[in-house]
């Protein structure tokens, strides 16, 4: 989260919030035209809330949150005003021409000026509007061409390749902002334009994340300084763990153990930085990433079906006919304090077994008393490019099932989602009972997400909307296969 504001229902705040939004967009790398349009979209939404959401309250407030990734900006506006559905207020140009009725004009502009506009009805807990815009990556070609033009011709990797060199002959320093350009070049040489993380083509963006300490990485160089490999973890913003996110070895330097050396060094660095654990989302259309994780004692804890679109990996099979499922492999870096967990009976055995596999100490309690919160608190994030959504339950209120159902319904009505994932807090005594209440919502098991939010353990469930052939999902580890079998039994 970049920023969060609570705004009074007062038109005088429209301009200040627009000024902030416009400048924030520019800082995130959005170009001026798109920043203008995205800000106008927010202006429309805020105006609508001010005019219509609270007709009888003058002291009401609403919330605006700003968050960005390297390739996307997103604004989430939440309010608990009168029930409202933007789909029932569509702009009708004929009606406007005949009757001068502009109803829905603002929402038409919002839809045109955002890449994604999602309305989430949370029932009694109000409404959320998600506005998102991709950061333009069309200039990659131009940037790389310019970068080449400005620099003297470099020797190709083949020209300076030294076939005799093995992993131990390379250096593995921690990545610094100065390595940004070499990383971008390495990604380009290896994947051309097929690498999924577009931001890795931008030296400036890599530099920003390294300066911001969001990323912890290792770069492999030969004695001449040529970068031949890069491996990084991305720190999670809501917990002290990091995702093994970016890995590349130049094709001419593969099969020499460089990836393994980098992983080993990365684990050392993560321990030095007191990260509680590392996790990887390893694709299942081929087992290579899972094998590497397994070699370094990662434990498979969950299988997320249809988690990502089918991406073409350099050197790997491109004819995979369905969305790619991923295995969550987790490596605790320290033994966490013993936590008390409340496991739903249906998954008690597999969850307890997963904790044992991970060597994470827990005390399993049954039938504990609990008190519900006044209101349910569920965080929602949408991955627009992968067509998935993650709901994280922070608190259960008396209306939990209704709120969750409303959120799922409104999400599904607007987005062509492949999967919705739901994280339930295992250290909350209400979870077993609330789990039983949502059994009709169509969620099946995904697995354990240890230490995933605020250093606490979660049960991940999944609801799948796309057809999958589970035989095409390759799971490498024995324990991962056990999780897959349980999921397969529920999926069919």
């Amino acid at each position, binding site marked *: 989260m970049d920023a969060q504001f609570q705004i009074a229902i007062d038109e005088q705040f429209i301009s200040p919030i627009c000024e902030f939004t416009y400048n924030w967009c520019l800082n995130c790398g959005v170009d001026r035209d798109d920043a203008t349009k995205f800000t106008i979209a927010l*202006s429309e939404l805020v105006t609508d809330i001010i005019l219509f959401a609270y007709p009888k309250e003058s002291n009401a407030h609403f919330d605006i949150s700003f968050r960005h990734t390297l390739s996307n900006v997103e604004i989430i506006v939440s309010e608990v005003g009168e029930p409202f559905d933007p789909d029932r207020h569509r702009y009708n140009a004929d009606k406007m021409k005949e009757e001068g009725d502009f109803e829905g004009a603002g929402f038409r502009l919002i839809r045109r000026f955002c890449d994604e506009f999602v309305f989430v009805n949370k029932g009694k807990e109000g409404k959320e509007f998600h506005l998102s815009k991709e950061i333009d990556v069309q200039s990659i070609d131009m940037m790389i061409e310019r970068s080449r033009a400005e620099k003297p011709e470099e020797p190709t990797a083949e020209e300076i390749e030294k076939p005799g060199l093995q992993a131990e002959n390379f250096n593995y320093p921690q990545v610094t902002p100065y390595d940004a350009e070499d990383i971008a070049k390495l990604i380009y040489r290896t994947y051309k334009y097929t690498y999924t993380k577009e931001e890795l083509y931008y030296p400036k963006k890599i530099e920003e994340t390294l300066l911001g300490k969001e990323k912890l990485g290792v770069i492999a160089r030969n004695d001449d300084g040529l970068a031949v490999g890069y491996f990084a973890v991305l720190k999670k913003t809501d917990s002290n763990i990091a995702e093994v996110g970016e890995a590349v070895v130049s094709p001419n330097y593969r099969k020499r153990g460089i990836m393994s050396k980098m992983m080993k060094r990365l684990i050392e660095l993560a321990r030095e930085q007191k990260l509680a654990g590392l996790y990887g989302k390893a694709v299942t259309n081929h087992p290579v990433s899972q094998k590497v994780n397994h070699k370094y004692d990662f434990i498979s804890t969950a299988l997320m079906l249809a988690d990502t679109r089918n991406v073409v990996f350099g050197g790997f099979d491109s004819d995979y006919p369905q969305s790619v499922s991923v295995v969550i492999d987790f490596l605790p870096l320290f033994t966490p304090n013993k936590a008390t967990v409340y496991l739903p009976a249906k998954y008690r055995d597999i969850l307890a077994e997963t904790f044992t596999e991970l060597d994470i100490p827990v005390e399993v309690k049954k039938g504990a008393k609990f008190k519900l919160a006044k209101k349910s608190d569920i965080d929602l994030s949408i991955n627009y490019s992968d067509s998935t959504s993650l709901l994280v339950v922070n608190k259960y209120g008396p209306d939990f099932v209704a709120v969750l159902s409303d959120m799922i319904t409104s999400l599904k009505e607007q987005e062509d989602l492949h999967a919705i994932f739901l994280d339930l807090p295992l250290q909350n005594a209400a979870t077993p009972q609330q789990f039983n209440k949502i059994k009709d919502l169509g969620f099946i098991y995904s697995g354990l997400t240890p230490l995933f939010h605020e250093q606490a353990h979660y049960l991940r469930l999944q609801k799948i909307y796309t057809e999958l052939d589970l035989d095409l999902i390759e799971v490498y580890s024995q324990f991962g296969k056990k999780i897959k079998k349980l999921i397969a039994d529920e999926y069919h």
Partner: protein
Amino acid sequence: MSIIESRKSKDTLKVKVLNNFNLLTRNKIESRLTREIGKLEIDLSHCKLLDSEAIIFMYQWDKSGNKLNLINPPEILFEIIEILELRDIWQLNYTETKS
């Protein structure tokens, strides 16, 4: 900070929008429109952002028998007019003074 500067002269109100043209700006302009005003000149030279509240206000003013002239409207205004399908039914009077 002021939102607009305005000056009345007989039946004309000249308004300079100093920042964004939104609901607040619209309400400010409306509050200065007295009965004798029939011509409205809006200088948008310093306006970066304008939303549908601005467009609807100007359209309704223009279509209710009054006169409207805009100075240096930003490009986004024309895009909004296009999106709201107003182009064919609204002949907008405007003057470009920027080179």
